[in-house]
């Protein structure tokens, strides 16, 4: 799959909003879960 440069990659054939909206929110939420888990781990291990 050959993208003709960054702008084409970001545009996703006109569907950029949908594709990046999907990937963006999904990975943001997964990242949020990881961050919350890390914080919870730190709190717990600080208490014991």
């Amino acid at each position, binding site marked *: *799959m050959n993208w003709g440069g960054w702008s084409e990659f970001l545009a996703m*054939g006109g569907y950029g909003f949908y*594709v990046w*909206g999907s990937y963006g929110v999904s990975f943001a939420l997964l990242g949020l*879960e*990881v961050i919350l888990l890390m914080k919870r781990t730190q709190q717990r291990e600080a208490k014991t």
Partner: protein
Amino acid sequence: MSATIKWYWFASPQSFFPLAGTIARVCWLGAALLAAGGLYVGFFVAPTDAQQGEAYRIIFIHVPAAWMSMFLYLVMASWAAIGLALNTRLSGMMASAIAPTGALFTFIALWTGALWGRPTWGAYWVWDARLTSELVLLFLYLGFMALQAAIDDPRRADRAGALLAIVGVVNVPIIYYSVQWWNTLHQGASVSLTRAPSMASTMLAGMLLMALAFWLYSIAAALTRVRCIILERE
């Protein structure tokens, strides 16, 4: 038998704690690597779809997330059943640990489904059989989490949640079948989300890699969370 004794030794939360940590670390790493591979295949190897253009690339998140949402509910219900049957504390903790991750994947499946539906079907939300069943699954997850949150005593919370999860898992096929029947009656012909792009082998490979990545991620997240639960309770 020494093998049986070894298994039961891990059923104690204290013994399981370090093992969970090791497995979790390995799985975090594995998930990251597989995700990198899956995304590479999804964006740089798989070709453009003839009908849907680039919009179809959402499939690499949507389908694996949907698979995980259903698989995790089954795993959660299994741990719940084991906990009720064998009266082991750790099983109940595992079920509670899996729930938030499962709910998250359900939400991701719904969100990406909506954003995929807009350019392809013309609407953000359509009462497609699978999306509607997925929505009900989200309610089942949230109900489980709400019930556990409302009960102060951990033992009662585990057992009540377990019963709910088992009742839920028995109902999931019934709910899916009824929604599918309802959908065909009221919607008529509708494009199936996985049938629309003809499955080139590269597309399938990308989906499988992402599915494996999500699976390892779920294991890592659940084990990390159960370690927190163990610390909180013991």
